[in-house]
């Protein structure tokens, strides 16, 4: 047996500190959630917090948004690269959002506080939040242009606080460059409060256990996670597993491709993106930090969901990217859609690759989108505001059960806005957010279902949205069927529906990157999200489960017959046992759009 714990760190103290580091991040989260002012932070929870050791290795993270998981490290590194370890002082807070210096997309603001104890550097607290608006050509920076400059204020690593006091000049610059200046000070203070919470916890721990014990525990914690991750990689058969997925559009060209090879060798994984498309014109390019984050969080689901998140989980996994690649974006490529649209496709491609290696453990793809939109709205007095929403879809069927319906994609864990809140705050009215029949991928365990979302504009507004899965739905595991396609529709005041993104009734396809689409008072935006991919052969799904789905309107009588082989009388809703037996005996049909 190898000696696991070094120096003066006993296993009990290690466990105590392990949970203390986690608690520190949870506490940051609680402080940020409680003291922030903007709905996107306080209500939708689009933020993450982390603590790093003195070598800038991740120690612990409370990632509300997994897509922030690995990316925050790059932000902290960019700050050190610019300012150097030697200039760091207690009470100095740095800020960065530049996608080309440690950021991902402009709205994600990252705050970094070095933590000192008795004059020595103990570690770093890092807090990242998605701010509603930092300027650019459309609300939320979602103008879908061809240059990063169109997406808003790009802050290089900047010293925001000196000795716990903010630099008001910088705060003024930010306030001058946003459509929502009223949130700036409150939200900044909330991030600051979160950083101080972590500083207090780490300093108290250093005092109680001694700096050396703390340092040893930090390194040991990373080793601990690495052991867990390596063990779980060992359980995946060695091999090379290839998969593809694509973004429907960058606004200029259809089908921007991800191609990847997942190489498993003993306790190491390499993800090689050779063959993926070159950098594209539109706003979905992903800087390395974002691509890396997507790889790590996507694998985490099937490596070890419970392992403490720290540097140890990164060590066994390496990433190879072609130099000219939309997943390795270089200035001045626009990147606004990378955290949502692009990340979720990386997840789907990786899970499809994993499904070849361990089909008995991998789930179908989720709806593989974020469906994030931002709209600027004006009430009848001309007062303007910005609201956003992210109507979720379903998760993939699992080896054990149906997937979750209408639940935020793996990339985040953001909440929607209650209709009654939205109506109080903005000149809009939610008209629907309910399950969409036949939106899930069929399977022995079907995907969770997607939703139909409708919002009516009471005043004028412009809506921007990036999405995908409008050409094909999400794939499953060992099932020939995909989930339904997503679609964006404008319902005119006379009730006429016009598809504005995705497949139209006559089979045309419209680009689903909506940049500032105008709505007049009384017009409604409808979004139909998709469900998750299924798991296993739908012809083996128990007849009673299929009937229950029909009784609950999750599945139509037609889909029950065509995709599950279960024949149900549309009037009596009784199962025709004989017809069902015959249909199921004939074997499952292969649809035209079948996955390989």
């Amino acid at each position: 047996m190898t000696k696991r714990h070094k120096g003066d760190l006993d296993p009990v103290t290690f466990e105590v500190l392990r949970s203390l580091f986690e608690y520190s991040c949870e506490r940051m989260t609680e402080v940020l959630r409680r003291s922030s002012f903007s709905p996107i932070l306080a209500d939708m929870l689009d933020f993450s917090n982390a603590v790093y050791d003195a070598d800038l290795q991740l120690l612990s993270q409370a990632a509300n948004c997994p897509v922030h998981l690995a990316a925050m490290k790059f932000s902290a590194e960019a700050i050190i690269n610019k300012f150097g370890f030697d200039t760091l002082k207690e009470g100095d807070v740095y800020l960065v959002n530049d996608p080309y210096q440690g950021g991902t997309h402009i709205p994600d603001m990252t705050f970094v506080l070095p933590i000192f104890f008795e004059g020595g550097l103990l570690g770093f607290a890092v807090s990242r939040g998605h701010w509603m608006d930092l300027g650019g050509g459309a609300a939320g920076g979602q103008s879908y242009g061809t240059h990063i400059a169109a997406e808003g204020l790009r802050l290089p690593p900047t010293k925001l606080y000196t000795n716990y006091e903010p630099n008001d000049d910088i705060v003024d610059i930010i306030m001058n460059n946003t459509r929502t200046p009223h949130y700036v000070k409150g939200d900044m203070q909330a991030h600051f409060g979160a950083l101080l919470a972590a500083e207090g916890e780490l300093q108290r721990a250093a005092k109680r256990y001694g700096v050396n014990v703390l340092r040893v525990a930090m390194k040991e914690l990373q080793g601990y996670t690495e052991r867990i991750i390596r063990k779980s990689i060992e359980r995946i058969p060695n091999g090379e597993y290839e998969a593809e997925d694509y973004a429907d559009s960058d606004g200029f060209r259809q089908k921007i491709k991800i191609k990847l090879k997942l190489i498993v060798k003993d306790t190491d994984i390499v993800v090689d993106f050779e063959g993926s498309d070159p950098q594209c014109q539109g706003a979905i390019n992903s800087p390395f930090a974002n691509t890396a984050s997507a790889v790590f969080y996507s694998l985490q689901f099937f490596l070890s969901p419970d392992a403490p998140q720290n540097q140890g989980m990164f060590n066994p996994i390496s990433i190879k990217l072609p130099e000219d690649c939309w997943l390795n974006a270089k200035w001045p490529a626009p990147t606004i859609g990378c955290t949502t649209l692009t990340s979720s496709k990386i997840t789907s491609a990786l899970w499809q690759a994993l499904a070849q290696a361990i089909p008995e453990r991998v789930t179908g793809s989720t709806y593989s989108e974020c469906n994030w939109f931002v709209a600027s709205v004006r009430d009848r007095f001309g007062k303007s505001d910005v609201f956003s929403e992210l109507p979720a879809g379903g998760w993939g069927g699992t080896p054990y059960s149906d997937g979750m319906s209408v639940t935020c994609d793996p990339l985040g864990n953001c909440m929607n806005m209650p209709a009654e809140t939205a109506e109080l705050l903005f000149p809009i009215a939610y008209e629907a957010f309910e399950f969409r029949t036949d939106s899930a991928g069929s399977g022995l365990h079907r995907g969770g279902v997607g939703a139909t979302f409708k919002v009516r504009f009471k005043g004028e507004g412009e809506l921007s949205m990036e999405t995908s899965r409008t050409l094909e739905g999400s794939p499953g595991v060992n099932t020939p069927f995909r989930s339904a396609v997503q679609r964006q529709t404008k319902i005119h005041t006379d009730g006429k529906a016009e598809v504005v993104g995705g497949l139209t009734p006559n089979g045309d396809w419209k680009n689903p990157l909506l940049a500032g689409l105008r709505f007049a008072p009384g017009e409604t935006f409808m979004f139909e999200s998709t469900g998750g991919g299924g798991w296993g052969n739908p012809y083996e799904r128990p007849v009673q489960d299929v009937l229950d789905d029909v009784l609950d309107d999750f599945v139509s009588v037609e889909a029950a017959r065509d995709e599950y082989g279960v024949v149900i009388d549309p009037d009596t809703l009784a199962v025709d046992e004989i017809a069902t037996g015959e249909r199921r005996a004939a074997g499952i049909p292969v649809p035209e759009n079948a996955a390989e």
Partner: protein
Amino acid sequence: MWRVGVDVGGTFTDLFAWEEKTGKRVTAKVLTTKGDRSEGVIQAIEAAQLPFGDISHLIHGTTAATNALLERSYPDPALITTDGFRDTIEIGRQHRKHLYDPYQTKPKPIIRRRYRYTVPERMNGDGNVERPLNREVAADVADKIADAGIKSIAIAFINAYVNDAHEQEMQDIVRARIPDAHIVLSGETRPVFREHGRFSTTAIRAALMPVMVEFFDRLRERLKENGFAGALMILKSSGGVAGVDLAKDHPEELLESGPAGGVAYAAYLSRLTDYPNFIHTDMGGTSFDASIVEDGKGLITRDYELEWEIPVIVPMLDIHSIGAGGGSIGWVDEGGSLRVGPRSAGSEPGPACYGSGGTEATITDANLLLGRLEPSLGGKLEMDRNAAETAINALAQKIGLDPLETAEGMIRISCENMAQAVKMVLVARGRDPRDFVLASFGGAGAMHTAFVAEAMNIPKMIVPAYAGVASAFGATAMDLRQDVEAFMYASLAHVDLDEINGTFDRLEKRAMDLLAQDGVAAADVTISRSAQMRYVGQTYEVESPMPEGRFTADTLPKLAANFDEQHRLEHGVSSSDFEPAIVSLSVTATGATVKPPLFEKAEGSSAEKVKGTRQVYFAGEWAETEIFDGEALSSGDKITGPAIVEYNDACAVLPPTTHASVDDMQNLVIELGG
């Protein structure tokens, strides 16, 4: 006449009673009856040898409502809602519980989708009709529900919190077809905004009504048969009580009916001792609860969730629970680290030392091995020390420590986890641990309280008398209470004073009418007002106290100042950039009840105070430790750690770094530091 508190828990049914004339007290503990839970109430009263005819008040805490919901064991209810919102109660906020678990599922909805119907209608947020109720579709839906034989119906329409005219109209249509149905309207259940919480609470009331009506009727019948003619009162989640008839109509207010008794006890202590602020903790076999009591009141939340994304928005005591208890299992994880819980050996098979087939090392096994637990538990049980030792040895080998280090380490880890849970409770409400005394309830609480306090730098703890039957004791110390609420959205700059005054008048009248049903005279009612407030643009509220009397223009600056202060307390910040706004007004009306009297000076039983000594393991070494009989201790007695104080239903562990004294109420007050 006797006032009797009965708490029916998962394992035991506890009773505490006191006689008004003499101040005499009795307690009883019987096993909870699994089938008909009213039977356990009868048995507890019989065990305490109380004549049913001599009971003036029976105050009952019950988990019946919570159990029915968790098991979904109620007849199928139906939901009628606005077109487009059929799935609000199932979609929730599209949030998942575990960030990275790919196999997780969400709880089953309270009402199945096939019985969720929609009708065309739309009320606007300002209370004006956007689309009238389509009566044809409404009648068709009512027919379908009647055909399905459903007798319990929730009607929950969008924006009904501001105008529920369409809900009323729908109710009439349903009533005409199903005259004997329980019909529940969202605008009446809780007229506050945010449809998910309101719909969910309405659905829960509809689901529970038939179950709780049956349950309470049977209980009342059984008590009557035995000669009981007093008042039957039920503990509510808010920390108050109500008569059984009111409780029956508001079953959604009973979900923390059990734990509320313990918190009520802590609140009672905070009014009687010199310590205004307590952290109430309760550790049993599987879970550890923590909540805050401040200035004699338990903190209230409106963010309760029955299960993931199933909110209940009535005001409830803010009680947090984690999986840590005597049965928590020690284990070594994949990375080689020693962990404790959240998995528990429960009562079956129980800790290894119970000898019922458990083989994994639990906290109870660790306590036994370290000499902190007396192996016969006062003659109630014969614990198997060898089995505990075998279990701990196996764990010790896996991590390369000796067994005693392992046992002590398990307890330390578990106490750190509990300390963090307590800290999160405090942080979430912006409170500072240094302002609090840790109050320890439950069978396993006092064994660990000193270590929990040490881990979070709280210098003082209290182990209350009757800690082992705390919820039953608390039941007898609660006031009658009604909480009513009305939506009123206005920024302070645009507030209509007449509307505030009118709304408070209306609410106070309603609350007093409700209390009058429980026999409280208007003159005996205490009213407290508050408002849910936020800064304009925020999407969450903070409860802010509101002054008595008529509101005038001069009152408004005071409201703003109150709110700023409350927001600073709960969230650590306040703002001058945003204007305060009122979202809803609430009134809490209480009618005082007669409480168990104070002792002048508590006298213990006549038994020897020191039962003897034994070797107990603390901080890496064995120490000769005095064992006290807790029931024999009297006011003014002092104890210096290391010591163990054994009670009938609990046991306090005092490590060498502590000392303690017994106060006038026979509470054990423990302090850290020699």
